[in-house]
């Protein structure tokens, strides 16, 4: 398959774009692989890509029970940022952000990464203090994050109402200019195409039913609805279904799965130049390149795999957006949907080895995994290939729940889910 370029675009224009080849193969599963990745979302496909690119040659398969990018990768609000409080997470997310910057050329696929800035609004003295603590912590790590006065915030995002007599006045904002959004489907497709070109077998409609262990306790194979596949190294990147996959290997992990909803409005002309998040009124909003406003809601309170949430949760998000931006009151919502997010107690992911030899896990990204996609795949690939955690992934080991070395972003979340 040839690279995308202006030349190929012109060539295919001559044939009315009817002769574009398939972007990746649909191979039948082989009897064995060196590495099997369970889960064909962004994180799983990125893992396969970096395994093939940086640690090959390896025979790699990605097993996806539905279609690639059909889970949380296709259901999030596409916000990308790295302004986390703790050093371990800020470094991990910034590693991802640096990869985002060149991802389109790296994959030869336009992921439409748009670093338009992520702005977090402060409505109280407490918000101001917390954000300034975040800003200082980020700056010490060399990560851009800056404080804006209400006037500066309005200059950057003209639709803000900075009247100080409002119910939730804007007292300032933290801005990460390198943050932004990307096209979520393109991320899955771009990684899939690039991984496929490096020989990775992407096998869709292939659900893992069981994990088989040898007499030494190490993983030996996965049983799927498309037959048994042998592999001595298995990486589970199954987001909300991780507890189920781990259960197949006899493991219980500190994870719970909750519904998380998002909505998009009818498309309108460009009005919203950046991403705006407000913790206090609990709203986060951006405008897609198509013109739709993309709005994120909260998680429901109960564990669920249903991929639907309560209507009162979605309407609360709209109330919050309308509180912030009364001009959107008459905008109609086009679609709403739910994903299933895998949440840990410290709201930080789990990346690394498990007590079962050969079984690796990358999960617990909770409500904010999309932004980490390239970094997550990159460090997880190194972890699988070297059978020891990548240095950026090491603090996120499963063992932290026993040692107590938490990375407590729960208390530091941009929006409290």
């Amino acid at each position, binding site marked *: 398959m040839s690279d995308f370029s202006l030349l190929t675009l012109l060539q295919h224009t001559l044939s009315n774009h009817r002769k574009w080849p398939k972007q990746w193969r649909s191979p039948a599963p082989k009897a064995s692989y060196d590495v099997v990745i369970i889960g064909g979302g962004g994180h799983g496909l990125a893992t396969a890509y970096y395994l093939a690119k940086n640690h090959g040659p390896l025979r790699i398969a990605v097993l996806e029970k539905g279609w690639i990018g059909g889970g949380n990768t296709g259901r999030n609000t596409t916000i990308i940022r790295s302004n986390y409080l703790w050093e371990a997470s800020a470094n991990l997310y910034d590693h991802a952000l640096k990869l985002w910057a060149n991802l389109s050329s790296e994959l030869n696929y336009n992921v439409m990464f748009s670093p338009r800035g992520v702005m977090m609004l402060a409505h109280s003295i407490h918000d101001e203090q917390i954000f300034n603590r975040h800003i200082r912590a980020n700056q010490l790590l060399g990560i851009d994050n800056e404080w804006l006065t209400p006037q500066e915030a309005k200059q950057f995002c003209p639709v803000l109402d900075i009247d100080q007599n409002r119910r939730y006045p804007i007292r300032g904002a933290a801005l990460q200019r390198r943050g932004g959004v990307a096209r979520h489907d393109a991320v899955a497709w771009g990684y899939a195409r690039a991984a496929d070109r490096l020989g990775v077998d992407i096998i869709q409609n292939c659900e893992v039913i*069981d994990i088989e262990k040898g007499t030494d306790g190490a993983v030996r194979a996965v049983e799927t609805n498309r037959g048994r596949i042998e592999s001595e190294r298995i990486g589970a990147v199954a987001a909300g*279904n991780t*507890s*189920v996959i781990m*259960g*197949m290997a*006899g493991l*219980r*992990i*500190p*994870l*719970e*799965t909750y519904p998380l909803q998002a909505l998009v409005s009818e498309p309108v002309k460009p009005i919203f130049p950046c991403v705006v998040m407000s913790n206090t009124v609990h709203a986060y909003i951006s405008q897609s390149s198509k013109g739709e406003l993309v709005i994120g809601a909260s998680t429901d*309170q*109960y*564990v*669920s*795999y*249903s991929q*639907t949430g*309560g*209507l*009162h949760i979605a309407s609360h998000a709209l109330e919050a957006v309308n509180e912030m931006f009364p001009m959107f009151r008459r905008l109609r919502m086009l679609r709403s949907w739910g994903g299933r997010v895998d949440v*840990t*107690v410290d709201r930080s992911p789990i990346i690394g080895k498990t007590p079962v030899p050969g079984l690796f896990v990358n999960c617990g990204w909770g409500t904010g995994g999309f932004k980490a996609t390239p970094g997550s795949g990159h460090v997880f690939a190194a972890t699988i290939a070297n059978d020891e955690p990548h240095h950026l992934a090491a603090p996120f080991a499963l063992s932290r*729940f*026993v*040692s*107590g070395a938490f990375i407590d972003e729960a208390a530091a979340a941009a929006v409290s889910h």
Partner: protein
Amino acid sequence: MLLITCPYCEESRPELEFHYEGEAHIARPLNPTTVSDEEWAEFLYVRSNSRGPHRERWRHLHGCGRFFNAIRDTRTDKFIITYRQGEFPEHEIVEETPK
């Protein structure tokens, strides 16, 4: 929004009256001084997170205020049964993973 039957009030009420309290029947270790770090981690953080029937605790916060338990299928969010504290109705929990 879920419709939940409080086993004390014996009425079906909207979810907004209730607060979810996490997985049910997790007993605090009786003798904390002898509990290892691994056992504490299991008690505090590890949850079954079942895909299917799930035993969980709810509180009728804006009603009678009492805690009760429920079995709910997490694939459909349908309640199979709600029951009072101290009870443990048998229900054949169909595990998706036999181990």
